């Protein structure tokens, strides 16, 4: 068995008195699509923030290959090969799609050994930019909107803009935070294909998703997080049969889990989310 591309050991993140991520272990192999699931508020996005560098961890270690990255700032981690999309899409809205995707080149150009600032005055239409950008646009199926401002692109397609922007830097690890939100069925299919492609090229894809059908289709492995703790790692099929996972979800599968899950010893309670609880 090869070495893991991404490994987390005892990663802990506290916000004041709240422990959002609590001693999480995770091993991600190259060529894998790794699902990260769990009820709302379980700490999935916080964990991604910890790995990408938006959140500084309080304890634990994060390794990307041979490199320990948990003390590095966000842009350095991006340059080492960590790419991500956001749950709530973050793109420079006033740029054109072409420009927004081109900006993703920064991660590879400013990487160690990259020619860095020599590229600053490169024309946007120079082959060094145009070729990778057009290829990324085509792969994402958004070449027709290249010259449209991001702000006027429909939400579902913006996921592809963000994806293209991330993939253009050829990240080793790609984090997708609830990417299927607002996508049409067609878009979801195209998206799934692209994710499988990325993994097939020897990258690791970490997928946070509430849509468990999509997770089942795409993921080789899933890690289930509940209240900041990892409660399960295995194949999607195993996850569906795992008692702890079922308890965490309580059959509500893709929607809000009840506020307080029952203690481990007691038998599973029937789900009874009141509207008030669901709203929190």
């Amino acid at each position, binding site marked *: 068995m090869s070495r893991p591309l991404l490994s987390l050991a005892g990663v802990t993140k506290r916000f004041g008195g709240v422990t959002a991520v609590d001693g999480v272990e995770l091993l991600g192999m190259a060529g894998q699509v790794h699902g990260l699931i769990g009820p709302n508020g379980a700490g999935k996005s916080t964990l991604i923030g910890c790995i990408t560098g938006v959140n500084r961890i309080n304890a634990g270690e994060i390794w990307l290959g041979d490199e320990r990255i948990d003390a590095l700032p966000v842009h350095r981690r991006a340059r080492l090969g960590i790419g991500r999309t956001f749950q709530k899409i973050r793109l420079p809205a006033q740029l054109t799609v072409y420009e927004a995707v081109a900006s993703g080149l*920064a991660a590879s150009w400013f990487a160690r050994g990259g020619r860095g600032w020599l590229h*600053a005055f490169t024309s946007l239409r120079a082959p060094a930019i145009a070729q990778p950008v057009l290829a990324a646009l085509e792969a994402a199926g958004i070449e027709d*909107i290249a010259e449209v401002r991001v702000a006027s692109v429909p939400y579902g397609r913006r996921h592809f803009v963000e994806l293209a922007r991330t993939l253009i830097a050829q990240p080793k690890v790609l984090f997708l935070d609830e990417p299927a939100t607002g996508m049409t069925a067609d878009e979801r299919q195209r998206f799934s294909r692209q994710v499988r492609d990325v993994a097939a090229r020897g990258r690791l894809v970490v997928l946070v998703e509430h849509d468990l059908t999509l997770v089942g289709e795409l993921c080789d492995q899933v890690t289930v997080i509940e209240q900041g703790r990892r409660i399960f790692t295995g194949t999607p099929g195993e996850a569906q049969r795992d008692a702890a996972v079922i308890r965490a979800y309580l059959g509500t599968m893709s929607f809000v889990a009840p506020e307080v899950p029952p203690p481990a010893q007691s038998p599973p309670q029937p789900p009874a989310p009141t509207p008030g609880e669901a709203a929190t």
Partner: protein
Amino acid sequence: MSDRKRSGGMLAGVSGGVAVSMATAATVAVVIVALLAAAPLMLDDYWINILVLGFISSIVVLSLNVLTGYTGLLSFGQAGFVGAGAYTYGVLSVWGVHPLLAAIAGVALALVLGLLLGLPAARLKGHYLAIGTLGFGVLMAQSLNNMVDVTRGPMGLLGIRSFGWSHQVWYWAGLAISLALVALLHWIEKRTFLGVILKSVKYDEISAMSSGIAVFAVKLGAFCASAALAGFAGVLFASYVRFLTPDLFTSADSFRYLMMTVVGGAASAGGGWIAALVLTALPEALRGFGETNLRLLIYGATVLCVLWFLPQGVGGVLETCSARWRRSRGGAAVSTAAANAVATASSSTKHPAPDQQRSETLS
């Protein structure tokens, strides 16, 4: 297949249209430049003087474009950098240093101050950044006022040596330098990777970081470039006017520059250039109303009206005009503004061919 054929046809049509529109654009540009260049032969020294000051102001406005317009960092202390450049040049030239060396020193000192201000200020956002830069401006004005041994403080710095150019030569130099800088900044913003990086930082820092952009370094670089540019304007000012007092570089002046920038459209080099000229000349042109407050009232009202009716500033008008003009000439010539309209109507907009893009750069 049919799509490709059609786009090929469109392209042929476009290149014809672009050829015509380029010829027109070139003619218009030549006429405007010829008029501007010939102006000092028709104007008296008083108006030439005002226009030279307008050109120098426009360089300060361009420095604010870099910082505020492109990178999204507000500066309320830009006059501080202008003052640093101006006084460094002034003092050194009074001491007998060669004007060229003094000029380089002026720009360099402003750049260093930009770095020193940027180190804390690039970590600040919103109101805090505004207050921080405002504080810098006040600090600079007070320093110039109180370092009497060096700057002669409120007595004013006299005897600044210069290049010995006539008003006309200054006019042509100012015109050429400011227009060259406009073209350079416009090119950087619209056509280069650096422009995209700056705007990525402006619109979304988190996503910029996640794309591997060192946001802090970019902001620091923007502070340095902006300060150097403002310092350069100060050097020009000192060597042109050859008399300096600290009250030329107060917060009021910072606000004046910022106002010009906003009227010009914060991210538009061309708009900023026009706004700087107009807003420098307007108070003088209004002297016909006498030296009373009425003059300033009209001036203020004009600025308010511009902002009320043209929230994107002069630059917004320029962009709309050029987009509309391009559309009417080239049919499918793709500018970003035109493309938005086209793309929302139909999604058949093709990526523009490189040659077409290049022709746009020139138009």
